[in-house]
């Protein structure tokens, strides 16, 4: 049983002077600041921490290194909390995940005995027949699957992403990382040093805890790092992945820091790998390095009497270390440590028996380790059970090999190869600016790690300085650090390769037998390495197993891809804080005073309508009536406003738009369409001529930047002497529309609004004494004017129009009324009535395409499309007294039982008293005069009568130019 030791360790993380109270499964416990959830529970003698994913087997602590995915916890607020690294907090209410009715009596624990009925690939093979039962199985499986429960009332904590720039990013603050960071900083580099632990030191703190020289050097290194002005140290900071141009996002408790480095030095170290034997998942079976972390960081003895299975010198060092701390090492089963690495004399002195060429064949005990069977083992992993013996113990520690934490190196384009001597992969090649060092690089000796760190730092510095990169000096160890085959067969299986997903040796063998004998297929079929730890303890053994089945080398077997993120990261941290500007019109405050209901229109906030919350439909209808019967005002400041100036201004516009512009006289304007090279409509607006070399161009709201961009590019391509200026933010715009609009505007302006003098186009003058441009606008009503002035003048003009208009019945109207009004007028909205494939002929705007000019964007495509229109926009109306539901946009048009089109716009017209709309339909149907059949929700069919536009009766001649917002 684990317990907290009385003696204080020299570098331990906990503060024994203070006590934290917390509960687990409702029972109260105490821990100390600096404890993790797991260390605090173990200190209280609680070793059963979780249940496994598939079989609900009892599980406990394993690595204490952020890989303990069988000891996940939840609190009322949060789930999937990794107990091995999550700090204990006062008052924490900790619960297990994936159990029903408590850890001890989990109602799903019987699943373990049903295991033989759930072989690998079982989910793919069962449950889909008979088909009718699948929903039942799906519900049952979904209920069991997954680990935690998401709190839907969760309060988001959206921290802004931060940015950092440095010459060198050093990942890992152990012996290698600390040394390298200092070397780089001492030589003029700005350095960011990150480590996932709360304190720098890494393997110093547990693997070298008994080495006074090493610890003195550790303290000096850390002090120098803290004192160095060129080093920024982040702890509890996980380097999530390596992206292009050395972008490495770092997850910290305060959110993500996006570090852009010129070079990266990886001192990410190694991940200890487990041995595979029967019941190797019982609480009490741990990695030796995990037991050392527990001891030296948290002062917790993982057990009282341990068996160790080792295959390297580190295992013996750990045995002596744990022995010195008072844990009895009952026996060591040695799976092939080189003789030179066995400290025979010290073991003898400590009274620790060593069984050479032995393995742990099985662990015993129901919910905790009670004994282990040791047996001689052959190279094939089969034990000689005739010579087996059973040893009582309450812990089994494994030190049988390592895997490099090479994920970031791999993502940066580095390659690893399997080193048969070290029995682990080592880096083979890497970019000059992403350099591995230390144990990641196969360097195990502490002094060699310092050397390797300085050597790697020197090579990185040379690469950053653009100098020739020195040759790599080999500091790698030349003795084995792991077993080539740490895997022991057992008649009853339950020898787990992957603890995340409950994958046993036989599962991988069976998957390979069924033909999934490629590493990527094996992974996907068996799910090995697909759990929360992403195979950090499973992949290396899985590759060994497959290599042996295929009778090929480890490198020939290959490896799966290590994609970001290195550890799971909170989604709220990935999302960061929403940094999206909201654009407000210069008239925003005036709208708010009028009771505007705002809506998002791209980046802009625009009034949707004005009035009380519950009176939406009435308010919109009243706004529409005001425009039709008197006068209305709408803020169209969101309209893109672009000026094109220069001797070639007309030529530029002719090249960019489908219409003629050169023949416009000063003051005249014309509706303008912009298409792309395939002839698809991308924008529309108005082009008006202010002078011989000066044009005013409007663009759809939200499209101004793109239109300016395209005009600028077209000017560059054509070498036109023309300049394009986006004035959208400088100018406010108001549309005055309705039969009384002339009466309202005329007294306020020096522009002659007489219908004969100002049929269309643009005038420059004053409105309310302010310099302004006035355009004719017919988008929402036959009679309309658009006033553009600078933002301060726009506020003044709006206020005056509202005041003076009161007597005329003026009313501000919003986007909703505008959509109805333009529909009544028969005008389309690009992007609503057109889609990403619509050409001008389909949009019934052939008149806006002027083929009498030799070149413009899309001319070639349009010349072909003019003859081949396959669908066309048509107008329709619905009877006023229809008791069928009102169709909505994107409802289908049905002809002879087939889809013949879709509704693009539809609205109830307050002016006409019935619904009107546009539909994009097949040409054959458009050419016929047949009524449309619209299919609304639930398959109900509605008949719509064809109509001509404008829907509202003409009151005289239609104004020519129009611009829209």
């Amino acid at each position, binding site marked *: 049983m684990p317990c907290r030791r009385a003696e204080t360790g020299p570098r331990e993380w906990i503060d024994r002077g203070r006590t934290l109270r917390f509960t687990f499964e409702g029972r109260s416990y105490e821990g100390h600041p600096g404890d993790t959830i797991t260390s605090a529970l173990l200190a209280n003698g609680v070793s059963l921490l979780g249940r496994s994913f598939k079989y609900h087997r009892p599980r406990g602590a394993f690595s204490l290194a952020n890989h303990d995915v069988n000891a996940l916890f939840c609190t009322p607020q949060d789930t999937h909390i990794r107990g091995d690294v999550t700090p204990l907090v006062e008052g924490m209410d900790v619960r297990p995940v994936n159990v029903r009715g408590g850890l001890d009596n989990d109602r799903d624990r019987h699943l373990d005995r049903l295991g033989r009925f759930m072989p690998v690939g079982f989910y793919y093979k069962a449950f889909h027949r008979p088909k009718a039962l699948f929903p039942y199985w799906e519900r049952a499986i979904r209920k069991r699957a997954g680990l935690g429960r998401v709190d839907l009332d969760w309060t988001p904590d959206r921290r802004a992403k931060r940015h950092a720039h440095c010459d060198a990013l050093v990942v890992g603050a152990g012996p290698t990382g600390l040394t390298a960071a200092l070397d780089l900083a001492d030589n003029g580099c700005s350095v960011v040093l990150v480590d996932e632990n709360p304190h720098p030191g890494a393997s110093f703190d547990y693997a070298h805890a008994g080495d006074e020289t090493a610890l003195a050097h550790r303290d000096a290194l850390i002090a120098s790092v803290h004192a160095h002005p060129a080093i920024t140290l982040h702890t509890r900071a996980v380097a999530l992945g390596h*992206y*292009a*141009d050395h*972008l490495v996002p770092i997850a910290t408790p305060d959110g993500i820091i996006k570090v*852009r480095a010129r070079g990266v030095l990886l001192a990410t170290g190694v991940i200890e790998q487990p041995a595979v034997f029967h019941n190797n998942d019982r609480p009490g079976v741990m990695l030796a390095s995990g037991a050392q972390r527990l001891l030296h960081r948290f002062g917790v003895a993982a057990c009282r009497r341990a068996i160790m299975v080792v295959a390297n010198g580190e295992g013996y060092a750990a045995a002596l270390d744990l022995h010195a701390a008072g844990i009895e090492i009952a026996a060591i089963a040695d799976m092939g440590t080189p003789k030179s690495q066995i400290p025979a004399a010290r073991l003898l002195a400590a009274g620790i028996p060593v069984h050479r060429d032995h393995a742990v064949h099985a662990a015993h005990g129901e919910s905790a380790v009670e004994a282990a069977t040791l047996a001689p083992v052959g190279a094939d992993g089969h034990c000689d059970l005739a010579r087996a013996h059973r040893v009582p113990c309450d812990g089994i520690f494994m030190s049988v090999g390592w895997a490099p934490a090479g994920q970031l190196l791999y993502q940066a384009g580095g390659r690893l190869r399997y080193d048969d001597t070290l029995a682990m992969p080592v880096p083979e090649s890497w970019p000059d600016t992403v350099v591995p060092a230390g144990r990641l690089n196969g360097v195990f000796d502490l002094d060699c790690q310092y050397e390797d760190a300085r050597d790697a730092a020197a090579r990185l510095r040379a690469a950053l300085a653009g100098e020739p990169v020195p040759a790599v000096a080999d500091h790698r160890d030349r003795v084995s650090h792991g077993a080539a085959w740490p895997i022991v067969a057992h008649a009853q299986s339950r020898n787990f390769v992957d603890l995340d997903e409950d994958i046993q040796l036989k599962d991988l063998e069976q998957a390979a037998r069924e033909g999934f004998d490629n590493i990527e297929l094996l992974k996907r079929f068996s799910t090995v390495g697909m759990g929360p730890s992403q195979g950090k303890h499973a992949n290396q053994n899985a590759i060994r197993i497959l290599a042996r089945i295929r009778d090929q080398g480890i490198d020939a077997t290959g490896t799966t891809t290590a994609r970001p993120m290195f550890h799971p990261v909170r989604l709220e941290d990935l999302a960061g804080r929403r940094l999206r500007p909201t654009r407000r019109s210069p008239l925003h405050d005036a709208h708010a005073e009028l009771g505007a209901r705002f809506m998002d229109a791209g980046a802009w906030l625009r009034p949707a309508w004005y009035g009380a919350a519950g009176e939406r439909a009435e308010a919109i209808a009243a706004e529409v009536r005001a425009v039709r019967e008197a006068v209305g005002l709408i803020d169209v400041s969101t309209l893109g406003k672009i000026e094109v100036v220069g001797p070639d201004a007309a*030529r530029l516009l*002719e*090249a960019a738009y489908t219409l003629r512009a*050169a023949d416009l006289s000063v003051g005249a304007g014309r509706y303008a369409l912009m298409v792309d*090279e*395939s002839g698809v409509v991308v924008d529309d607006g108005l082009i008006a001529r202010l002078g011989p070399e000066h044009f005013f161009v409007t663009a759809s709201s939200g499209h101004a*930047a793109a239109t*300016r*961009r395209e005009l*600028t*590019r077209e000017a*560059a*391509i*054509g*070498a*036109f002497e023309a300049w394009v200026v*986006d004035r959208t933010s400088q100018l406010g715009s108001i549309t005055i529309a309705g039969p009384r609009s002339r009466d309202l505007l005329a007294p306020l302006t020096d522009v002659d609004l007489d219908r004969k003098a100002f049929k269309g186009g643009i005038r420059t003058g004053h409105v309310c004494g302010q310099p302004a441009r006035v355009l004719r606008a017919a988008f929402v009503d036959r009679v309309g004017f658009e006033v553009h002035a600078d933002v301060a003048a726009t506020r003044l003009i709006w206020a005056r129009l509202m005041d003076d208009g009161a007597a005329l019945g003026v009313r501000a109207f919003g986007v909703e009324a505008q959509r109805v009004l333009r529909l009544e007028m028969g005008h389309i909205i690009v992007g609503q009535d057109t889609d990403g494939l619509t050409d001008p002929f389909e949009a019934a705007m052939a008149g806006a395409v002027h083929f009498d*000019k*030799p*070149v413009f964007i899309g*001319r*070639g*495509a349009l010349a*072909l499309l003019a003859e081949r229109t396959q669908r066309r926009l048509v107008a329709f109306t619905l009877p006023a007294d229809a008791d069928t539901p009102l169709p909505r946009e994107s409802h289908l048009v049905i002809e002879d039982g087939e889809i013949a089109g879709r509704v693009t716009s539809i609205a109830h017209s307050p002016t006409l008293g019935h619904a009107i709309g546009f539909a994009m339909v097949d040409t054959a149907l458009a050419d016929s005069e047949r009524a449309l059949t619209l299919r609304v929700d639930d398959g109900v069919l509605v008949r719509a009568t064809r109509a001509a536009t404008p829907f509202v009766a003409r009151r005289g001649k239609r104004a020519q130019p129009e611009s829209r917002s």
Partner: protein
Amino acid sequence: MKRIDCPEIGPRPIDEFTYGGEVRRPPQADADTAALADYVFNRAGAPGVLREWWHHDPSGRWFVLERDTRTDTVLRSIPITEVAHAVPTR
């Protein structure tokens, strides 16, 4: 590529740029339908050195950058006059 090392304005984050596609010369006005369709719809997509339009949004400038798509590195900036072509008016 998370950063564009623009030879003219220095290294800038890629989110400051809008991609404008490969620099391509439109076919002559009298080109046949196949040539036109090829120009409108087909892109080689083969790895290699491409000349591409990149618009730097904060400064409102277009750049024509030569990029090696195999290494995702910008090799040089091409003066726009080099890719300009006269647009006939009549």
